[in-house]
């Protein structure tokens, strides 16, 4: 049977259900027979609940964050041509980013976009 010190180090991941099957079974066996470690499980659960509540209460990211990310990552649209309908269509676009001027082409099928061309910096395409 594992020693108490060894078990107590594993208890945080035991209460998270994040131990390998055999290791979890070892800990469960030990705490079934050790009142002190069982109390430690209860204490770990209380700490876990407090930590979870504290981090869950943190402020949310601002709504503008996506705008900033998309401007930096995807760039500013220079031109876009859209033909066809919602069911079947083709979109061609050119963007300006800090890393060049990518060109993209997407085929639209039943509302879902399928990538045809994506030329990024250095002429790489997919």
């Amino acid at each position, binding site marked *: 049977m594992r020693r108490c010190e060894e078990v*107590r*180090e*594993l208890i*945080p*991941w*035991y*209460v*998270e*259900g*994040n*131990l390998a099957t055999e290791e979890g079974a070892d800990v469960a066996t030990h705490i079934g027979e050790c009142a002190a470690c069982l109390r430690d499980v209860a*204490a*770990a659960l*209380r*700490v*876990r609940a*407090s*930590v*979870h*509540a*504290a*981090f*869950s*209460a*943190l*402020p*949310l*990211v*601002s709504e503008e*964050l*996506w705008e*900033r*990310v*998309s401007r*930096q*990552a*995807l760039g500013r649209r220079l031109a876009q041509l859209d033909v066809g309908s919602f069911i079947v269509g083709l979109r061609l676009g050119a963007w300006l980013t800090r*890393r060049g001027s*990518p060109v*993209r082409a997407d085929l639209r099928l039943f509302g879902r*976009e399928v*990538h045809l061309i*994506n030329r*990024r910096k250095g002429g790489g395409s*997919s």
Partner: protein
Amino acid sequence: MLTQNQRETGEADDRTDRALVARTANGDESAFRLLYERLAERVFRYAFSLLHNRHLAEEVAQETMVVVWRQAGKFEGRSKVSTWVFGIARFRALDLLRKEQRGARVPEPTLAEPDPAPAIHDRERALGAIKTLPEEQREVVFLTFYEGLSYSEISGMLGIPEGTVKSRMYYARRALAEALT
């Protein structure tokens, strides 16, 4: 404790993330937007747990997601997507921390004013207790109890031995239990 269903949900979430990263690597903006929706908030909270500053945590979340867009094609799939993304965020956050410590940046006041409502008071108290932990312990607490990472995943992500992860957690838990009693 985590149930089999929760574990399966976590695995399914990672499969979804991997599919989105693969599409993002091909320049699929809608996939990148979905990835952002799934990860940006978590990255922000992780960065906040390290920096305790909303403005800087948003900066980290922004830079991390831009790196995800640019580096999606280099993701090798050896870890969970979230572990990879947190690794990027950690690097950015620690870089900002170093700049802040050198006085290159001025931190801003961050935590919300205490509210008299008991539940909010408890959360503020818990946040206050977490804030007193050394940064390396705070991080392990966040990754274990909020993100649900295993000690081996944390060890891989932080580049430290598993024993160090366990001992950081042990001391953090002892300090938190005392502060929250």
